[in-house]
């Protein structure tokens, strides 16, 4: 077991013990699972680079020196072969993709193993902390591992075998790799997309260029939209249009929708007529409708056909055709009349007429339907795909269950965000810190502290601290109610669709929320007047009581203000929703509490005496 870091820089000695130079690199043959070291590169006097065959000349090697079997004059130099990779130049310190762990990592060291006295093979790349420590100093690694063991937490080596490495920075496409070598090409497109997102933008484009067309198309569909559009910008137009053709039309339409108008037009123009037409048709529908997420790749047959015809038709499909869930039947006028499941095709005789085995009571959607409704229908009726038909009943395409799932997930995330839970990507949600969670939940607490600090700071000179603290004891009421007013708005927004005729009108909502504000405000006022009549009699603490009263009056007025403002929040939510923009309920809460804090401070200051704010 030996590491590249221990070999680099060692002296190379010939048979007579004369020093030829210092080791600078090792070349490996790439065709094997554990590649053999085939050449030795070293720098001679005057930094001249040399390369010799490892097999022919190296007699022995170790941590101190490499000894050749012949004298210097008998050594013949060689060149780097096309299937060779240099360890230090191409792999060490570079970013590689761990195709099994599916992460992008940096190589800290390379682990080699001596299979015989002269043969050396590459075991894998070390990507863990130990590689870093060893490269800094082997002693440091020993100390660290010992300390690790003392604490019962040994530091493991993290080795990635050659067969699970993909050298993203060096194009290996013309190097013959071993059969078992797993590169990005062999990975699931969703995983490739994940990896691409971890890379720097430039490298993203380069990795992408190494994939074949189909792999590209699939990975592109899985990428986040903004990143996908960015990569599209890097591809040549011919490549981009080829890739769009290979994508499912609905995914392609999504992507084209992200591009600038000029770019999109140019790409569509150089695509195949048929593919471009399919994409254009989908692009014609508004964002968020069934038309936008449907695919035109559906199999339709005349009613009169037999099972044998259907099977024949399915055999003739291209491999890249959207997965077939149902066959759709059309009558003589081209109207959708029924659907046949694949099961039905298998269990019935080839001669059976399709019309006899078809389901005729179909759930369909119009292309202008809201995509959320379509997704809900698919979920409700347990369908794998839902046909989309035009006004005359002609089949336009289908919405498949995977797209429906995406829609539901998206809507769910949007609703959550409006409800104030923040963006919960499945990956980032669970990891969020408990402190953050607390902050999100109990935002008023933070505002309260800041508010007290500011008011204490501003009024510092003119009003005793006790008065300010007493006044601000009512501040939480104002803040919490402001937060509640936002939850009230978001709840109302999520429950009532603005397009729905039954839902209360804006005016109704405004009256209702102002009413609520007045009631809440009145309750707080009642408490104030209660204080006023009971405690005010005591003359000694009159000033303190006045501060307290000022606080509560501030809270009452700020509460009313919060609820009076809530129709405006609703209007903002609806406006942004119509324009398909995302709104965060969290930000709304922040704004509402900020306003509440300001109102409170103003009212409290005017009651305790003007001139406090103006120091």
């Amino acid at each position, binding site marked *: 077991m030996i590491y590249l870091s221990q070999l680099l820089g060692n002296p190379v000695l010939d048979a007579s013990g004369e020093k030829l130079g210092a080791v600078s690199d090792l070349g490996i043959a790439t065709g094997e699972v554990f590649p053999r070291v085939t050449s030795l590169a070293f720098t001679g006097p005057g930094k001249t680079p040399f390369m010799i065959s490892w097999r022919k000349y190296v007699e022995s090697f170790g941590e101190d020196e490499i000894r050749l079997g012949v004298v210097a004059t008998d050594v013949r130099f060689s060149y780097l072969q096309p299937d060779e990779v240099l360890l230090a130049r191409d792999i060490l310190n570079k970013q590689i993709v761990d195709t099994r762990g599916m992460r992008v990592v940096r190589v800290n060291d390379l682990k080699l193993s001596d299979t015989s006295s002269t043969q050396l093979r590459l075991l894998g790349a070390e990507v863990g902390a130990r590689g870093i420590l060893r490269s800094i100093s082997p002693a440091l690694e020993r100390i660290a591992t010992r300390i690790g063991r003392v604490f019962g937490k040994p530091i493991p080596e993290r080795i990635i075998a050659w067969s699970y490495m993909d050298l993203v920075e060096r194009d290996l496409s013309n190097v013959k790799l071993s059969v078992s070598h797993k590169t990005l090409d062999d990975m699931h497109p969703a995983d490739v997309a994940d990896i691409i997102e971890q890379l720097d933008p430039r490298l993203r484009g380069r990795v992408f260029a190494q994939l074949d067309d189909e792999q590209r198309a699939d990975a592109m569909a899985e990428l986040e939209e903004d990143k996908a559009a960015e990569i599209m910008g890097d591809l040549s137009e011919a490549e981009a249009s080829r890739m769009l053709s290979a994508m499912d039309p609905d995914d392609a339409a999504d992507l084209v929708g992200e591009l600038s108008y000029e770019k999109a037009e140019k790409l569509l123009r150089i695509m195949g007529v048929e593919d471009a037409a399919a994409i254009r048709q989908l692009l014609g529908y508004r964002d968020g409708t069934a038309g936008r997420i449907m695919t035109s790749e559906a199999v339709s047959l005349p009613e009169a056909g037999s099972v044998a015809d259907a099977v024949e038709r399915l055999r003739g499909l291209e491999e890249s055709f959207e997965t077939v869930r149902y066959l759709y039947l059309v009558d003589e006028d081209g109207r959708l009349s029924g659907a046949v499941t694949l099961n039905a095709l298998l269990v019935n005789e080839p001669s059976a007429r399709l019309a006899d085995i078809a389901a005729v009571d179909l759930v369909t959607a119009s292309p202008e339907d809201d995509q959320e409704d379509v997704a809900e229908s698919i979920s409700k009726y347990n369908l794998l795909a839902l046909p989309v038909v035009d006004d005359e009943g002609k089949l336009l395409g289908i919405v498949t269950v995977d797209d429906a799932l995406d829609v539901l997930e998206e809507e769910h995330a949007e609703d959550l965000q409006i409800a104030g839970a923040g963006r919960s990507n499945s990956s980032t949600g669970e990891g969020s810190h408990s402190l953050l969670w607390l902050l999100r939940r109990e935002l008023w607490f933070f505002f309260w502290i800041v508010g007290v600090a500011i008011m204490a700071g501003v009024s*510092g000179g003119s009003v005793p601290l006790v008065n300010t603290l007493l006044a601000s004891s009512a501040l939480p009421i104002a803040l919490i109610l402001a937060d509640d007013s936002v939850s009230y708005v978001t709840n109302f927004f999520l429950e009532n669709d603005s397009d729905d005729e039954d839902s209360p009108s804006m005016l109704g909502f405004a009256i209702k929320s102002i009413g609520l504000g007045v009631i809440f405000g009145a309750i707080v006022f009642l408490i104030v007047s209660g204080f006023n009549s009971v405690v005010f009699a005591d003359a000694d603490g009159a000033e303190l009581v006045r501060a307290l009263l000022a606080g509560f009056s501030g809270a009452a007025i700020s509460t009313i203000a919060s609820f009076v403002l809530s129709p405006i929040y609703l209007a903002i939510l609806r406006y942004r929703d119509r324009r398909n923009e995302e709104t965060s309920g969290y930000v709304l809460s922040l704004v509402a509490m900020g306003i509440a804090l300001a109102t409170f401070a103003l009212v409290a200051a005017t009651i305790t005496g003007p001139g406090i704010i103006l120091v």
Partner: protein
Amino acid sequence: MAGGKGEPTARPKLTLRRVLAAMGPGMVAALAGADAGGVATYSNAGALFGFAQLWTVPVMCFLLIVAQETAARMGCVTGKGFASLIREQFGVRLSALAMLALLVSNTTVTLSEFAGIASALGLFGVPAYLSIPIAAFAIWLLAMSGSYRRIEKILLAISCIFVTYVIAGVLVGPDWGAALHATLIPRFTEDPRYFSLLVANVGTTIAPWMIFLAQSNVVEKNAREEDLPYQRIDTVTGAVVASAISWFIILTTGAVLHGAGVNVEGAEDAARALAPLAGDYAEILFGAGLAGASFLAACVLPGITANAICEAFGWERGSDRTWSEAPTYRILITAIVVISAGIVIIPDVDLFGIMMIAQVINGLLLPVLLVFMIGIASDKHIMGVYANGRIWNALTWCIVIAVIIFTVLMFILQAMGL
């Protein structure tokens, strides 16, 4: 603007838009450069030595352009961050050294930003034990979530308050002839403070973190070689604006404070330079500007540091990664914020002293990173035809050697002074 020249492919319609699109990073760096450390250094320079250090401003401006342009060029050509390049060119051992230098320098700068926030809010009567925990918490949240970009513009607007130095400088009615003379003709004194101020001046103007910020901005935008003219415009405008502000800070403090014999020992003293303009409101104006610029820089710094270190060692990074995915990234940010805030909150600590010392440390460590930069930027294998020319290399070496000479002189004079 001369943006489109030599760009046959660029259509004139797009040129202005692309210039504006490229704008920003340089401006951010410039205005965030007028942060706590910058204001402290320039105010001190003006108060102690009057106009004597005005000559540094054009020199620093030029050197700042050299450093920032090289960083942007490296980003455009390689598409990689500075840390990545150091690691791939110089291996583990040297990149560990470079990252250590960056970590120390950035932590001290963050520390000085916190000192800036504490002393700025101190002007409003908010004590440090109240302002620092709240500010630290907010900065930590913003740095962790990466959402400081959303408030970046607001803070930039606030820190534009320092533009008032320009007005104040004009209102004071200084001896323009003397100022111009001092700008063009260098003057030296044997005061050790003069040289420690020089080192601090270099450290705050050409801060290592700005180099990393400039390059990572270019990489994130995936700017190419053909975008270089636009990046250069951005770099130069940013540097010129930053230098103009620092020139006026030295001018104003030199005219107002040096004339009155005031030593800058705290924010109140530095704020007094704005009195000719704002009268009694000088402290409010100064405090708001200082707080804004310091807050902005303090939000950016921990993220830049953690990003560079994780980039060099190949650990996962980015604000969209969770604690379990990118533990080192998050630990680094947290540690930098906690350490900086922890030191500033120590009772009776000399806040202005911290700001000054941090800039000196920054200046001391700058040559380390610049040497790496020269090594990469002049390598034809990496940079191709965009490699550093001889003049550019010589200029960068100038910064390195100048800082080393200043440092040595500073220590010698300090030793003699004892």
